[in-house]
């Protein structure tokens, strides 16, 4: 039996496969593209076994047919982070479509959580839109921000208004590096506000694609006054949690 966690997000689809004993045998991240469900099915095809227990999470979870279990990404990220860090107290997950802060017990049980409201402020999509407006690759945002001299405050939290603001600053001759630093300041402030809603307890673990941006992480550390641990494969923590929850459920039901 293999335990499969499938996290169908708005920007990427992630898969984690654990063997019978819980050891990692396969993981992959692919773009969601036009259809996250199609991308997820293609990923599943790369796991050639009929003896598998599939747990699906992420925004696409409701539409994925054939899964054995459907679990919210909040529960999955908490479970995955607790597996990687036995002393976790807070999980910050900034994904493509939403950002969330979870207060968790060391066993991975969620005791409180807060999520961004409906707009894209403070999400990976926000950064993606801004990178496009600045005409720079997403991967370069970190380095650009590090070269900032005088960060430009971005007052709009709405992605649409912020995009106009960014264009205005560039037209006014502000340096791209300074604008990028202002954007990262804004996203960190937004997520720190969410974190304060639930109360930050060490150890703080950050998951999701935006955790790859060390500029956002360092800003959050400064705002929260706490070091943040970022797992090596931060994008697949939700899928890992899903696979682990599947293993627990399967073992409870006598499947192995």
């Amino acid at each position, binding site marked *: 039996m293999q335990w499969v966690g499938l996290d169908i997000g708005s920007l990427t689809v992630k898969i984690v496969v654990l063997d019978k004993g819980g050891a990692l045998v396969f993981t992959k991240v692919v773009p969601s593209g036009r259809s996250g469900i199609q991308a997820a099915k293609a990923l599943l095809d790369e796991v050639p076994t009929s003896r598998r227990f599939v747990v699906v999470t992420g*925004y696409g979870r409701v539409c994925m047919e054939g899964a054995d279990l459907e679990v*919210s990404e*909040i529960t999955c990220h908490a479970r995955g982070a607790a597996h990687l860090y036995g002393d976790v107290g807070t999980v910050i997950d900034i994904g493509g479509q*939403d950002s969330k802060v979870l207060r968790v017990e060391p066993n991975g049980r969620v005791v409180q959580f807060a999520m961004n409201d409906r707009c894209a402020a403070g999400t990976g999509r926000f950064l993606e839109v801004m990178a496009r407006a600045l005409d720079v690759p997403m991967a370069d945002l970190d380095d650009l921000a590090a070269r900032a001299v005088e960060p430009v405050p971005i007052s709009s939290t709405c992605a649409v208004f912020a995009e106009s603001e960014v264009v205005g600053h560039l037209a006014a001759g502000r340096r791209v590096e300074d604008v990028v630093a202002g954007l990262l300041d804004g996203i960190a402030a937004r997520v720190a506000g969410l974190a304060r809603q639930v109360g930050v307890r060490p150890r703080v673990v950050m998951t999701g694609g935006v955790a790859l941006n060390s500029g956002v992480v360092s800003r959050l550390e400064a705002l929260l006054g706490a070091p943040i641990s970022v797992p090596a494969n931060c994008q697949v923590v939700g899928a890992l949690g899903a696979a682990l929850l599947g293993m627990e459920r399967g073992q409870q039901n006598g499947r192995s």
Partner: protein
Amino acid sequence: MNTDKDAILARFKIAAALPPNRWITEYPRARPMAVFCSYVPEEMILAAGFAPVRVRKQPSQSGAWGEHLQSYACPLARSLLEQAADGELAGFAGAVFAHSCDTMQALADIWRMRFAGGFAWVVNVPTRLDGPHAMEYTLRELMDFRAALEGLTGKPIGDDDIRAAIGLCNRVRALLARLDALRDRMTNAEFYAATLAAQTMPREEFIPLAESLIPHIEAAPPMTGRPRAILVGAILDDLTVPALADEVGLHLAGDDLCTSARYMEGPVSADTPPLEALAARSLGRTTCPAKHREDWRRGAALVALARQRQAHGVIFYLQKFCDPHAFDYADARRDLDAAGIPHITLEDDAGPATAQWRTRLQAFAEMLGGRTP
């Protein structure tokens, strides 16, 4: 009348989802009067010969509200104005507001200018419900409202007419209270379909249906094992939130909603003069966030409600830009935190955010799943 359980619930669901522009077709024998707040004494409207219909937010269509309101007015005010401007309330005898918050008062003022010639009335309820002159003030307001309705119909409204309407509304409230006690034998969507239908259908049609439904519900086994939550907010526009809670296995064990618990509270006394009885209910019922009372603290009341209903958590369902609820929210959160009662917030703007609400509700259900009340 079809007394089959599914047939009755289907009728309730139709009524709960009925847009105002289809009301007259659905219930051709009655003349509707739009009501926008549970502080409106619908007994007076019934006594005047109209059917009170609680008009709620509808999905945005034309944006006609933009001529008069800023975008930071609450979505309820925007939608009500839009529905009227788009002719959705054609055939209604008029509209009755209560002075709940500044936005609704401003909406009433705009309404009277925009739709001059139509019947639009504001029933003022004192902001301080326990003030020394609150009863006298409310009584005067009810007398003025009676006179306004008499002016509209050209017929006097006698105390006996109001007493009869009080009896009818008390019956509705008693039936809803019975269903409230049987919530664990119904889905969330079924229960809230009944509460919304009670405020939409002609009351004479609702009562026999509810009376026929209750024995079916009583005979059903309770659904156990679901995490229990209290739903808190202003109005429930439709069944989206209850249905999503059903989907994720969350039982809404109680609520503090204008369109549910605060509506069904009662009964109105049948032993005192009718206007005094109606005023006493307005001043004495669970305090809406737009009102104040010296001895009332919303957070403490929610903690007590959660404990009474053995709820594991509380769901705030807030309308964007609703200041009274936002003001109470901060204190209520603090009180719930102090009591160790988890809570989440769903925010509604112009329409349901189904996917995001589902994630929050599912995560909340998963989080509460291991708890015991």
